[in-house]
């Protein structure tokens, strides 16, 4: 019998979902992300060399047995530096994203639930903040506070907070319009209860997706912040700083610059794949 061969892409778009919660792409993404998270945790312990030691007299040394990923502009072991740097890149991006979500998210939900002037004020405030160039904020912050991990985290968190606010507020407003929130409000529940019990559990899917995307952008932002001089203190370096400090080697195709760039790219692509393949109900309709 004729079965479904006449469906155009528009009529029946999605491929049948298998039992697996994730598609192949999602699994690949999850594997990459898991790999880097493990590296972030155990990186310094499995690094073959001291990440700060000058071991190679040759600069931008090529790959060889002693230096599997070559040596950097001072003759340090690139593999060890990437392994140690994973912790900074992933850790800082995670904490910063988390902070941004904590601040932007709670204020966003507060605005949505409170409505009226509170919503108005917060929305305008964050609208204004979002229009200040992020590089400028970063410059001011490092100039004022110097470059350290807390400053790095604060900068990234600060840059992301208005965006998080917008998305969370949008999502919370959708939920806030639903009847069960009205019921709770009619019951006399406090704003804190409404946020905690009624709104938050019902936007957790999309905001998790948003968290993933934002984490990805945080990793990329960190690598561009290293350009304006924001990074962890030497001798350690986050991946962005590794790229930056070895960029001279790019002309010679030095692994010292290519490898950290690949690390950033794989982590980013991994997170993206994972996020894109999360179950549909988790996806946020609002784009970053």
């Amino acid at each position, binding site marked *: 019998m004729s079965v479904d061969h006449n469906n155009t892409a528009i009529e029946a778009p999605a491929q049948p979902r298998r039992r697996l919660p994730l598609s192949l792409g999602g699994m690949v993404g999850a594997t990459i992300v898991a790999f880097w998270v493990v590296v972030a945790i155990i990186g310094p312990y499995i690094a073959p060399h001291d990440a700060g030691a000058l071991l190679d007299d040759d600069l931008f040394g090529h790959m060889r047995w002693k230096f599997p990923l070559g040596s950097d502009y001072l003759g340090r072991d690139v593999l060890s530096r990437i392994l140690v740097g994973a912790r900074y890149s992933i850790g800082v991006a995670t904490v910063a994203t988390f902070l941004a979500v904590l601040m932007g998210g709670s204020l966003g939900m507060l605005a949505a639930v409170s409505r009226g002037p509170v919503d108005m004020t917060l929305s305008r405030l964050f609208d204004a903040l979002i*229009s200040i*160039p992020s590089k*400028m904020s970063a410059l001011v912050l490092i100039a004022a506070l110097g470059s350290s991990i807390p400053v790095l985290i604060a900068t990234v968190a600060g840059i992301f907070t208005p965006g998080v606010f917008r998305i969370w507020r949008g999502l919370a407003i959708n939920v806030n319009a639903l009847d069960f929130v009205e019921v709770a409000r009619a019951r006399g529940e406090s704003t804190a209860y409404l946020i905690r019990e009624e709104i938050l559990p019902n936007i957790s899917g999309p905001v998790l997706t948003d968290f993933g995307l934002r984490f990805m952008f945080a990793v*990329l932002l960190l690598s561009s912040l290293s350009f304006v001089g924001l990074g962890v203190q030497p001798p350690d370096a986050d991946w962005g700083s590794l790229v930056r400090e070895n960029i001279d080697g790019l002309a010679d195709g030095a692994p010292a610059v290519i490898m950290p760039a690949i690390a950033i790219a794989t982590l980013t692509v991994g997170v993206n794949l994972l996020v894109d393949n999360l179950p549909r109900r988790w996806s946020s*309709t609002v784009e970053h």
Partner: protein
Amino acid sequence: MNALLVRLLVSRIAIAILTLLFVSVAVFLGTEMLPGDVAQAVYGQNATPDAVEGLRRALHLDQPAYLRYLLWLGRLLTGDPGNSLVNNLPIAELVATRLPNSLMLASVTIVVCVPMSLILGISSAIWQDSLYDRTVSLATMSLVSVPELVIATLAVIMFAVNLRWFPALSYSAGLLSLNQIFQLFALPVFTLSCVLIAQIMRTTRAAVIDCLRSSYVETAVLKGARPMRIVLNHAVPNAIGPIANAVALSVSHLLGGAVIVETIFNFPGLGRLLVDAVATRDMPLIQACVIIYCAAYLFLVALADIAGMLSNPRLRH
């Protein structure tokens, strides 16, 4: 419709002015909090206390902060953004040498990026979940994943140093022919496009897919419309709002955030002017840059909203 539009416009402008005021206060406080001032910045390593003191007095930096802010604001309201503290040149002149460059870069990038990302986004939406869709999204995703610095440097090494197709520097004064524009802007535009195409394409794809799920698309299918017609005639017009928004955000990013590209290609744009101004604590110049950036952002977002409104009769009336 007109009364509504006027009211909307008036309230938009009022909000914009308030926002700019707020931002200028925030920027002022931010720069005030920074250690050091323009006098120290000018002398740098050569600073001696009396030289710094002398310059400070000359620049009226010994006045209280709020007074300096009000003075600046007062001058601005008369249309004069003041002079740079560092070199005493009129801010308007400094900005006038940079802003057109940034606008030019942004326009060329947009001209290249938007059609390309629209084509990619729409076609991915049409063949959603196909091999093509997956390939396109993986490719754009990979491009956006490589740090801008690496892409820019690679582009220079390959196309400027090795192949000598394009200059490594992207600036030339004076009027340009189309060919010159192509030559000068090829590499920076290529670099910026790597990021932008992915972003705009992603939004386009999502917005079009969203529209494809709607009832009117089903109705169109049941009228016998072919996929191409459905997408172009029914889905795309309704996806213009979110797409315009994504484009607006990207353009504002281009105006103020293209610092890396401006540095690598030695492009005299607003981004580096701002970085420079922050480094030298040149308050009026910082303010001017940030306000331009802010106003551009607000303007672009408003433009995107208007585009969304024009494409959507519900909002138009």
